[in-house]
């Protein structure tokens, strides 16, 4: 049990859902500013992770090594992408792109969720329980981010401090570049991943291109996208406003 990745999985999802509930108590129930609450939560959880890492594992850098999930056997022998497609979370994340596009734009739940973000007053007047939908949104987002964290840790066979390296913010940027639409977000993420891999390749091969400048590119591109070189991006009308 102590060394079981499945127990870890369940615990990680559970903790993330608890934190999501706490977050929605602040932002949905008490209607406290969402950005400020987010800043507080980031401090709290990053601090707790460092604190517990030292307290439990007596290391300021990483946990002991643990086994990754067993691999998904079906596509294992496809050359090139076999390794990629034998990871459950990667497979799920690809499916998630289609799933979330479908849920957001083809189901009643998705319509109501979006109406809560676009025009909560109108939605409420049509009988949509806006605050419930905001709560569902936070919960789903908490669940999905827990998967991202689980993947990072399991893929490196351990948690290490600073491992996340601002990926939550990058994901935020990807969402904005992708104009809040899952298909577009997929390509935005692909762009970020491409530059991350490119930077590592450059560093190793030493083409003489400073890797720091490559490192800068995804963020610079995000800003350029926002400035409108690749088309305007518009958030839901009531994004970030407590209701």
């Amino acid at each position: 049990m102590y060394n079981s990745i499945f127990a870890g999985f369940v615990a990680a999802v559970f903790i993330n859902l608890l934190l999501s509930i706490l977050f929605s108590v602040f932002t949905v129930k008490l209607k406290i500013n969402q950005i400020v609450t987010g800043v507080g939560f980031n401090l709290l959880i990053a601090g707790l992770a460092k604190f517990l890492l030292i307290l439990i594992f007596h290391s300021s850098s990483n946990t002991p090594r643990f086994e990754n999930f067993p691999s998904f056997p079906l596509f294992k022998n496809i050359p090139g992408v076999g390794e990629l497609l034998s990871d459950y979370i990667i497979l799920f994340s690809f499916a998630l792109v289609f799933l979330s596009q479908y849920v957001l734009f083809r189901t009643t739940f998705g319509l109501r969720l979006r109406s809560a973000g676009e025009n909560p007053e109108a939605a409420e007047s049509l009988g949509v329980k806006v605050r419930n939908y905001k709560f569902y949104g936070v919960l789903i987002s908490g669940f999905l981010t827990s998967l991202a964290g689980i993947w990072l840790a399991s893929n490196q066979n351990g948690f290490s401090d600073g491992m996340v390296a601002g990926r939550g913010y990058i994901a935020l940027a990807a969402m904005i570049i992708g104009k809040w639409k899952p298909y577009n977000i997929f390509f935005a993420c692909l762009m970020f991943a491409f530059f991350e891999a490119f930077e590592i390749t450059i560093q190793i091969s030493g083409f003489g291109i400073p890797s720091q400048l490559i490192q800068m590119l995804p963020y610079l591109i995000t800003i350029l996208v926002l400035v409108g070189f690749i088309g305007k991006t518009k958030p839901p009308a009531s994004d970030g406003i407590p209701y």
Partner: protein
Amino acid sequence: MRKKIISDIIALFVSLLATFFIVSVIILLTGKDPFFIFGKMFGEVFGTGYGFGQTLFKTTPLIICGCGIAVCFHASLFNIGAEGQLNAGAFVVSLIPLYMSDLPPILTISVALISGFIVSGIFGIIPAVIKIRKGVSEVITTIMMNFVVLALLNFFLNYYFAVPSTVRTNNVSENFMIPKFSEYFPFFQGSSLNFTLFVALAVAILTYILIYKTKFGYYIRAVGYNETASKYIGIKVNRILFTAFFVGAGVTSLVGMNFILGYKGYYELGFSNNLGFTAIAVSLLARNHPIGIIFSAFLFGILDFGGLSVNEFIPKELMLVVQAVVILSILTVNKFFENLSHKLNWN
């Protein structure tokens, strides 16, 4: 107004009490005695000259940076980019004395601080212009700018300015160093506290005057409160946003004075250790009031040094948790008080 201040202070005490309670539970869960930990911490901070000096040394940049952020927050500009802005400015502050070493120190230091201010300010102007011209939220652009600035600095250090195989610049000459307290008051023996503290206090007072006693500050607050209404009464909203962002970001460069000219003598990548984010918390805790920021920065300074002083008993990272719990409890308590004052028909 007076009722407001009294309720703010009561709210602050309630939240500190709540924080103390929550953190005590955490400490108890680790099998330690919270009274011992807190006692030890306050003993080190207030009982020794070194501890008190170090606490004030850690308070100094938080006051400076907190005030810079407060200027932006008053204009409803969520500047999450202080981390990048202050690094850019501090980097410049460290370079000027290396290349202008023949001039009288007072001149060189002034040029260094002014150039630092301008460079930090420019990194504030960029998100301001994007916001004004394209309507893009400054939250996301400032976050992106943080990464861009740090990568740029890394590049400049690696290729031009760093001492080989390090990520730091050369030492500036002793002539340009800000005097330490310990040179005049032996009480502070060994601590890095320097005269930048007075600059920080002056920044807080000037920011207070700027925001609450000048026409410009009135415009900042008006724009922050209601942009549309401000436009209709003839305030040049864009100009206010632009200036607020320039000044707010520029001020953060002064932390370079504390760390580089007052302590290390060189710029080092990562010196800020998320100062730009902690300062957001400091400013929010004081409800963006510059005088309040002096106290909230001091509280964070106590936690910062206090954490180190109890590190042998409990990981100092506990203090990161304390900082977060302070913020979250003050948000909650403020909300309850707001609802209460609505019920009691205050305001």
